[in-house]
């Protein structure tokens, strides 16, 4: 499928899902409230962790804000794209409508991943960007061209890892049909990304790098934005991003081979 057609198709999807979502006017207010509430709470807990301390795992307050900001941004990304699309995979499997998706002349993984766009993640996205900007400014680093580019690339790589995790979990629902909560589980465990990874004890740090790579989602891009990016970490992040994308694709193909429709 040619790229321009893909793009216009995706935009059409998003336009129609936007229309569908806008029916619920209460949601907008609720979403903004939720984002501000969560942010206020996280900042509150962060401040508690800093009482009487000037650093948390070697990170200062302003620097920790950046990590929190990136987490919020990724949370918004999850709400915009990951949650609305990938939680639908379970529904498809349950109702047997995955067949229709597989019969379409579009790559099934692409279709399932980009079909919907929920505007309700936008407040979180914006809040995250604002927080990151605030943290950078207050920490005296400001917006340096190089750091910004590297940071953005590593953020994208972190987003790719996050996507792969979500997608692989959603693909799991082909076996465990009722696992509508699997992605929620992921969400609850990824909250560890709110804090810099060095704030955790060494054992947990290993977990957050190799098992649940939150380190690459928030800490590594934050370091890059602060101009403290290191090549090993950056390379590791990109490697992990590519690796996890490929793994998610392989896993999806594997899952599809085992796919059977639900009975009538």
């Amino acid at each position, binding site marked *: 499928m040619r790229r321009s057609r893909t793009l216009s198709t995706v935009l059409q999807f998003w*336009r129609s899902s*936007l*229309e569908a979502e*806008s*029916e619920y*006017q209460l949601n*907008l207010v609720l979403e903004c409230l939720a984002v501000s509430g969560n942010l206020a709470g996280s900042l509150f807990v962060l401040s508690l962790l800093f009482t009487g301390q000037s650093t948390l795992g070697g990170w200062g307050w302003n620097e920790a804000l950046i990590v929190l900001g990136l987490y919020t941004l990724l949370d918004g990304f999850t709400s915009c794209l990951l949650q609305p699309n990938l939680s639908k995979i379970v529904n498809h499997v349950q109702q047997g409508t995955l067949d229709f998706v597989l019969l379409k002349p579009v790559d099934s993984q692409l279709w399932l991943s980009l079909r919907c766009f929920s505007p309700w993640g936008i407040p979180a996205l914006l809040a995250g960007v604002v927080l990151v900007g605030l943290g950078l400014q207050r920490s005296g680093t400001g917006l340096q061209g190089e750091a910004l580019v590297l940071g953005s690339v590593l953020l994208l790589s972190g987003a790719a890892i996050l996507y792969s995790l979500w997608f692989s979990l959603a693909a799991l629902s082909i076996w465990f049909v009722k696992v509508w909560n699997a992605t929620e589980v992921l969400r609850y465990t990824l909250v560890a990304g709110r804090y810099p990874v060095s704030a955790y004890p060494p054992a947990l740090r290993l977990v957050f790098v190799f098992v649940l790579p939150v380190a690459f989602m928030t800490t590594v891009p934050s370091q890059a934005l602060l101009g403290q990016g290191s090549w090993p970490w950056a390379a590791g992040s990109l490697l992990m991003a590519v690796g996890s994308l490929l793994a998610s694709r392989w896993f999806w193909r594997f899952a599809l081979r085992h796919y059977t429709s639900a*009975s*009538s």
Partner: protein
Amino acid sequence: MSAQSTPIVLAQGLSKTYRIAEKQPGLKGTFRHLLRRRYRDLEAVKGIHFAIEEGEMVGFLGPNGAGKTTTLKMLSGLIHPSSGELLVAGAKPQRRQARFLQDITLVMGNKQQLIWDLPPWDSIRVNAAVYGIPEGVMQRRVRELADLLELGEELHRPVRKLSLGQRMKAELLTSLLHEPRVLFLDEPTLGLDVTAQGRVRDFLATYNRRTGATILLTSHYMGDITALCERVLLIHEGALFHDGPLGELTSRLAPHRQVRLELQQPQPRQVFEAFGTVESHQEHQVQLLVPREQLTETVAALLGRFDVLDLEVSDPPIEELMRSLFQQAGENEA
């Protein structure tokens, strides 16, 4: 105890109006809708009257959106009427008092109440506890109903492993455990194959005969209605179009009857046009539509005038009548 003369279902001036939000298509309409809503009133049921005696089997007919499911839900107490009086088994359904709930049951063809992952027996046990049916009585009723419905070890298999037909039968069994006086059935044979449909119909007819339960059912399948319901209520655009035997409905909708002739010698088409509307004409076979009042004399005339090998008189299929009626209605609305 109900007196013989009091109908078990009494509806007077029953109406239901919904208020729904309207949205214009397109993105502009979306944002306008977000900021300022517009509503319109939808009259689903407009002042219908009817009375049903205990033990009757009544069918509710009508196109989609005519208001028959709304009426059924009002009768079972799920929806509150906007206006009018309604009494079912001597109680106001919307109050949903315990005594009333013991007297009724609702089975919906497109929604199931059995627990999906467990065998029907588990749902049966829960129902028995909820309705206060003693263990021994429960066992006996299950045996009797399972017999009638031809269910056996299916009751011990998880519901998700049963076929649609078996599931429906299990649903019926579980819903009838407490021996309700009134059965509300909303599309009970939906999606079933022909054999299963037949079995369900046989069961309902037998059940009605044996227990004298009143059965109210809605269905898209004319077969259900013709097989089970002596009386039909046709709801059309929220109003009661017809209330009476099915035969009457046919006469009312179609003042004509079909006459099919098989001739010894082929006759030209024009010859038959004097006797009625020619529906089809093929050499030896002719199909005519004859007005009811003129039926006997027309048949006598045809027999006298032509060499008829075979003659058949029938009603136009009720499905066709329904279709043309609803089509007409659709055109009127447009």
